[in-house]
């Protein structure tokens, strides 16, 4: 199918959703949120001397399922037509630097109607519950907490047990390790979990673990994450320690740490952040140290502009210093 047909299909589905959201067309539209979500991202990778772009257009939906006396649960569905333009290295979901694909981001159901002492049960494709990402969603944003590099994937198919209690919240998942594919590949799997204090508080502390095999690399991680907010300032961090076991290279120790300082305007339109990231590996002669500075400006509920720049501050033994500048415009309707 040609790309313009994909777009027409998306728009058709959107209008169909809009129609069913009217009361006279039945109950599916009840408690349904849906948006068309489009973005254009320009990347300037100086280390690779390459300029590239990623265009995405899709539907973001959220639906609360209820019966007469209470909620049963909710579902999230996000399908995006994504087009690369001269993007290297080629992301795993694509076959070439100019490829285009339909991509499922989040697609899951969370059953919440059990008794208070029983966990909710989530099934589908979801973000692995680990570290800062569990309480700060970076879906579709330039801001990132590097799940993919740290764990091997950001999202995976499987199930999770989760709950928010009076003092703590937890989320433990078993997923298949197939990343975008809802199956186990060559024995892949991922056990992930996080338990932490309530994520809406001014001080948040969390502990996470990960034990998985993805892309034939076995990974183990233990992590601590924390956030502290004072006025419009926030300081937060994540430290993950563990090991990777690759088939041909054997075991190697891994360390990843991130510290972020952020500042938000009082009307929340402008968000600034700076991150200091350290990645260390026993087989690396040097430790990668990176600085990432970025901002986002929300013009209104529909339009957001964001920019970020990453620069490696140490000199790697081999290869060039990482240096990447990105700008993104995102529109939601």
């Amino acid at each position: 199918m040609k790309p313009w047909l994909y777009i027409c299909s998306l728009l058709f589905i959107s209008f169909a959703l809009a129609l069913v959201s009217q009361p006279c067309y039945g109950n599916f539209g009840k408690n349904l949120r849906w948006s068309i979500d489009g973005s254009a991202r320009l990347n300037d990778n100086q280390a690779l001397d390459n300029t590239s772009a990623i265009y995405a257009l899709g539907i973001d939906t959220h639906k609360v399922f209820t019966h007469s006396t209470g909620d049963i649960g909710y579902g999230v569905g996000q399908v995006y037509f994504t087009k690369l333009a001269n993007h290297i290295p080629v992301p795993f979901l694509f076959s070439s630097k100019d490829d285009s694909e339909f991509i499922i981001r989040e697609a899951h159901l969370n059953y919440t109607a059990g008794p208070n002492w029983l966990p909710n049960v989530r099934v589908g494709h979801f973000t692995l519950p680990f570290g800062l990402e569990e309480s700060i969603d970076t879906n579709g944003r330039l801001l990132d907490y590097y799940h993919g590099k740290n764990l091997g994937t950001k999202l995976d198919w499987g199930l999770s047990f989760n709950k928010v209690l009076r003092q703590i919240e937890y989320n433990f998942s078993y997923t298949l390790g197939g990343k975008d594919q809802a199956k186990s590949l060559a024995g892949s799997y991922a056990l992930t979990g996080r338990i932490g204090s309530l994520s809406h508080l001014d001080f948040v502390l969390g502990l996470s673990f990960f034990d998985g095999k993805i892309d034939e690399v076995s990974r183990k991680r233990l992590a601590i994450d924390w956030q502290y907010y004072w006025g419009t300032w926030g300081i937060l961090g994540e430290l993950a320690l563990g090991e990777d076991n690759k088939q041909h290279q054997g075991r190697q120790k891994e360390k990843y740490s991130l510290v972020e300082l952020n500042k938000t305007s009082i009307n929340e339109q402008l968000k600034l952040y700076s991150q200091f990231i350290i990645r260390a590996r026993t087989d690396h002669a040097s430790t990668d140290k990176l600085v990432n500075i970025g901002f986002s400006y929300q013009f209104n509920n529909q339009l957001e502009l964001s920019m970020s720049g990453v620069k490696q501050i140490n000199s790697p033994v081999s290869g060039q210093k990482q240096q990447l500048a990105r700008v993104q415009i995102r529109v939601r309707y």
Partner: protein
Amino acid sequence: MTIHFRILILTLAMLLLLPGNVNAVAYCSLRDPVAQIAQLYPQKTNQLSIVKTVDDNIRAQVQIALPSNDLHFSELGRHTLYIAMKGQEVLGYVHVRSEQSDWGLVEIVWAIDKDLRIRDFVFQRCRSPKKKIAQHSNFKAIFIGKNYQELKQQLSADGITAKPSVLSHAQGAAELANVVLRCALKTLLLTEILWGDELEKL
């Protein structure tokens, strides 16, 4: 630039020109105030969500009813009212609203009784240094038990601050009392305008 990119950019531009009532954040980041509902209604066994749209028409109604006030852009879009239930019995309602302050957005989780009076409230987010004062029962007493009309009488002539007689009970947290009062008024008004018909059927 290929035809595909042109179509994509054109589509984005078209979307930008159309008025919309969406949430700025991806829906996977939505979180129900589960812990706060449990705190406000400890006997609750389940909750019932009703999602409605706060659009420009509703925003205009708020501006007419409460001159000098506006809704923050994040307050537009689809929003949820939670009915706290104990089995089949309705205990009350829960409505979360944000109000801009000098310390960023203050997010308040309001417990409202079946007569649309403030029953209690807790902060989902408040980074004021005087937050502890606002959590005290003496401060909360300014608002608890009052309906929209009674709270509106507490507004001074400027429409955005409380009367001096009210602020004398704010224990030094006058600015926060103004924020909480504006938020309470908008919350009760929107509950009545948007969810009133549904609540009558319960």
